[in-house]
């Protein structure tokens, strides 16, 4: 009987610790995702403004140089455009897919907002839209880097302490 209690206590403690660790890493993953998105957007801007490539080609070339999930995002937009969908619709639908990854609701909304200019306005206006999104990403990364250390320590310690509390209460 005592062994089952010990195993249960260890399981509760381990799961609370892992949960705390998972929440502590969310900000790091978001920073990584946003940095990837920024790199890809700058590549896309170069393809549109300087290389004057059609949007589908620009998206394909950008996707080839990006990593998942940003690569998948650009691939989905490129394939939707090749299937005949409007660029703005394709961009907006693909942006909603990002919510399933490390991006926040705000990140998805701001990325979807670029659909208004991508693909049909002149290169200068598209570049301005991309620059605005890159500016938002920079601000978010800066904010996350400042709070990252504190948040990590909080969630990791809180996870273990909550596990110990639950074990103490249930024992």
């Amino acid at each position, binding site marked *: 009987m005592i062994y089952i209690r010990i195993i249960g206590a260890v399981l509760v403690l381990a799961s609370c610790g892992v949960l705390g660790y998972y929440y502590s890493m969310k900000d790091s993953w978001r920073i990584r995702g946003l940095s990837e998105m920024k790199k890809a957007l700058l590549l896309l801007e170069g393809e549109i403004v300087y290389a004057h490539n059609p949007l589908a080609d620009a998206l394909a070339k950008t996707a080839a140089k990006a990593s998942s999930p940003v690569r998948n995002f650009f691939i989905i937009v490129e394939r939707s455009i090749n299937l005949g969908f409007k660029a703005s619709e394709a961009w907006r639908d693909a942006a909603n897919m990002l919510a399933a990854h490390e991006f926040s609701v705000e990140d998805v909304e701001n990325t979807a907002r670029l659909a208004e200019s991508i693909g049909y306005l002149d290169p200068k206006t598209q570049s301005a839209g991309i620059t605005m999104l890159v500016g938002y990403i920079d601000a978010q990364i800066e904010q996350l880097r400042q709070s990252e250390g504190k*948040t990590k320590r909080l969630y990791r310690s*809180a996870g273990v302490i909550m596990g110990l509390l639950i074990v*103490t209460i249930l024992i």
Partner: protein
Amino acid sequence: MTIQVVFQIAAVGILVAVLNQVLKAAGREEQAVLTTLAGLIVVLFWVIQHVSDLFLTVQELFNL
């Protein structure tokens, strides 16, 4: 009432105090207060039956 209850209350008290400090250090004062209140409620939940027994015993003892 066994001594185990005393140790459990002490452990909960220490852990709640540590969690309170951790949350305050992270700037989450409201959550720190809520955690302290939750710990207090849990301990009261354990203790209330014993306190009730104490009052009944005193009542019987002094024929009140």
